[in-house]
């Protein structure tokens, strides 16, 4: 009894738990309120819809764990998709297009990392800058006009394997990889260390510059992948793809309870938001109530946690 109680208490310590409860609550409600919710097809749709935010959130989570922030992810999504599409068009090679898109994301991440580690620019400002620059470049490259984006990328974005969306599978696989990476590798552990105490970590011999560079680079790379998936899903690379994603991604990370979770957390957070959007469509909630509801669910999801932690201040 007291054993199982203490497990519950342990669980509840993690913000994740309270978000999970919320996730379950919304899901159960939907299962009753809509006949279609539990259909495999719908569930998989929810999974697919969460995938881009979740994948980008995986990188963002590591950035945040290392005490940074990456506001540029939305623009990197757009720029990577656009570069991928242009390369694909001009070289005729899907591989080059896809690799070029990923490389673009990576390059953006490296730039962010260098701005932070070399020029010591506050990451909020540095990535706010690249948010604008990357978006501008995407517009310049395309003249503002969306490009077609098909082939293998479309398979990644919209395809299914045994009826399961490829992007959903990718999300699961990447989340597992990132989780293992964060928890079991040296670099992963060092990310946590510099997030906790950069100075002490540096003195212990952790190369904080290269670790920081690494997390930003990874965040860029995953945003690039997100861009390819999104564009693939839409079969169109729009320079405005991903506008405003940064807040969703960061919210997914925080909802997921960063501190503890490279992988798991981000997915839970992203799923909660995708589930909400699904609920709105399934239940036919009016737009304005959608906006209100979304806010309330976010607050409650985390507030549950706060309620039971009453009493202990900083």
């Amino acid at each position, binding site marked *: 009894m007291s054993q199982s109680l203490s497990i519950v208490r342990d669980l509840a310590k993690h913000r994740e738990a309270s978000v999970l409860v919320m996730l379950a609550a919304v899901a159960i409600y939907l299962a009753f309120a809509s006949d279609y919710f539990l259909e495999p097809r719908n569930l998989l749709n929810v999974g697919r819809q969460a995938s881009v935010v979740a994948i980008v959130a995986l990188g963002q989570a590591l950035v945040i764990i290392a005490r940074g922030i990456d506001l540029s992810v939305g623009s990197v999504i757009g720029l990577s998709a656009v570069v991928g599409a242009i390369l694909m068009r001009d070289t005729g090679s899907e591989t080059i297009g896809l690799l070029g898109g990923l490389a673009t994301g990576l390059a953006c991440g490296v730039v962010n990392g260098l701005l932070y580690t070399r020029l010591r620019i506050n990451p909020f400002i540095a990535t706010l800058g690249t948010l604008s620059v990357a978006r501008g470049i995407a517009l310049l490259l395309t003249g503002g006009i969306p490009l077609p984006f098909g082939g293998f990328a479309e398979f990644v974005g919209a395809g299914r394997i045994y009826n399961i969306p490829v992007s959903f599978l990718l999300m699961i696989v990447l989340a597992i990889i990132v989780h293992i990476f964060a928890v079991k*590798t040296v670099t992963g*552990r*060092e990310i946590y260390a510099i997030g906790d*105490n950069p100075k*002490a970590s540096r*003195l*212990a011999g*952790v190369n904080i510059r290269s670790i920081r560079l690494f997390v930003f680079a990874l965040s860029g790379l995953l945003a690039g992948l997100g861009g390819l998936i999104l564009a693939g899903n839409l079969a169109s690379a729009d320079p405005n793809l991903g506008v405003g994603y940064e807040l969703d991604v960061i919210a997914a990370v925080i909802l997921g309870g960063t*501190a503890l979770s490279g992988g798991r957390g981000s997915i839970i957070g992203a799923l909660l938001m995708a589930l909400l959007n699904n609920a709105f469509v399934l239940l036919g909630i009016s737009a304005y109530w959608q906006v209100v509801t979304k806010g309330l669910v976010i607050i409650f999801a985390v507030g549950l946690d706060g309620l039971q932690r009453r*009493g202990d201040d900083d």
Partner: protein
Amino acid sequence: MYSNGKTSTAGNEPVAGILPSGPLLRARGIAKSFAGNVVLHSADLDLYPGEVVGLLGENGAGKSTLMHILSGGLQPDAGTVEMHGQPTHFNTVLDGIEAGISFVHQELSVIGALTVAENLHLGHMPKTRAGFVDFQKMRDEAVALLNRVGAGGIDPRHEAGTLRAGEQQLIEIAKAAGRNPRLLILDEPTSSLTPHEVEGFFAYVRAARAAGTAIIFITHRLEEVLKLCDRLVVLRNGAIVSERRPAETTRQQLITDMTGKPAIYEYRERQIPDKTVALSLQRVRDRDHLEDISLEVRKGEIMGLFGLVGAGRTELLEVIHGARPLASGKIALFGTPVSHRDPSAAVRNGIALVPEGRKTAGILPQHSVRDNAAISSLRRFSGRLFSDLRGDVTRMEDYRDRLGIRMARDTQPISTLSGGNQQKVVFARALMVDPSILLLDEPTHGVDVGAKSDLYEIVAREAERGLTVLMASSEVPEILALCDRVAILSKGRLAGILSREEMSEDRILTMAFMEH
């Protein structure tokens, strides 16, 4: 004991085939000032392999500064450092580490989010063949390392952030030990260790000495240096003023070396004429630790609070201060029941606290000394609209003199003060509230002997003027020196209260072990 006599001169060329027996490290004429404030004039120091040197000095004497210079964390304004007779210059701490210097800092810096084992291996974690962290190996090595420094009780799988300060300290020592340094600098490593832990730690230092490590040990506990060290060096006014062997010196002598005067505070028999009960606790419980604590402290009384680690002293003080919720029971101030939901209410009612853990709970690191001192009493002195900024200046001057705070300017960030002086500023902060009840939690951690007796003097003087003091301390001598009575806690329960006449080291300790 005194194994390395100054028999060889450092300038000699080592004879081929024979290990050089000159000093491992030789510092000459080290000088350092901060913004015109001279901290080190011209300090000379030789360190030999297999020797433990105790470094003593008042707060702000420059001990930590000198160590930072030797280890590469600070650059001297003048002077030279040689290692093995070769001039050396460390640009960064990492250079120093590379050269075999490990420095356990005065301020804790474990990585709270990592496990103990990970902390011990940070920067060089072992990998499995698959490229993952080899947790098994790390744990095994951690156990061995912890055992080496007498901390075998710490589970290497625990998150370091959840451990006590003393345990964190031991982790840092173990970490330094793991590097097998040639020079090990320990800056007040024992300030938060229990007596038992100190013993284990001493065993490690002796073993390291036997293995040929040179060790510098900084502390304000004179008994410790007398017991452990081979040579005692006293730093004063920015220079080394004495070098003595423990066998040939006394506490008094060392104190005189450090402070220039032999004075040390002694308990003065005091009458407590006022029978008013200032603070009364009735069956006080917090949510998980304290059990039915009842206690009365009279106006002008100094009540000690003793217990072993984890006895609940900090919790009890926090409950009184409103920082921790009172689950049941009653607290009354001068007969009036109070229930403080927040320390701000307690401070308004005249209860001030000097908290345990200067760095985490005491100082505002980016604020100036003056602002740090003023923060508790801002509301007390503010005009209708504006804060009394001018008054802060004069009050700071007043308390600087009263507590002997050593600083260049009161506008310098408090984090640039020496540890002991930071503590005095926190003391000044509490006194500026003009409290009727003063709660002290390990108030003299890291405070030098001279300043300690100053602080005792101040507490005693304030008590004579009617201040009621409740002081948690782990140092029995401190209790004996200052307290009129002592309450002993054991595992969250009140084990008993001893009056002045009943107090003795033995009785206090016996009661502290009661629930164990």
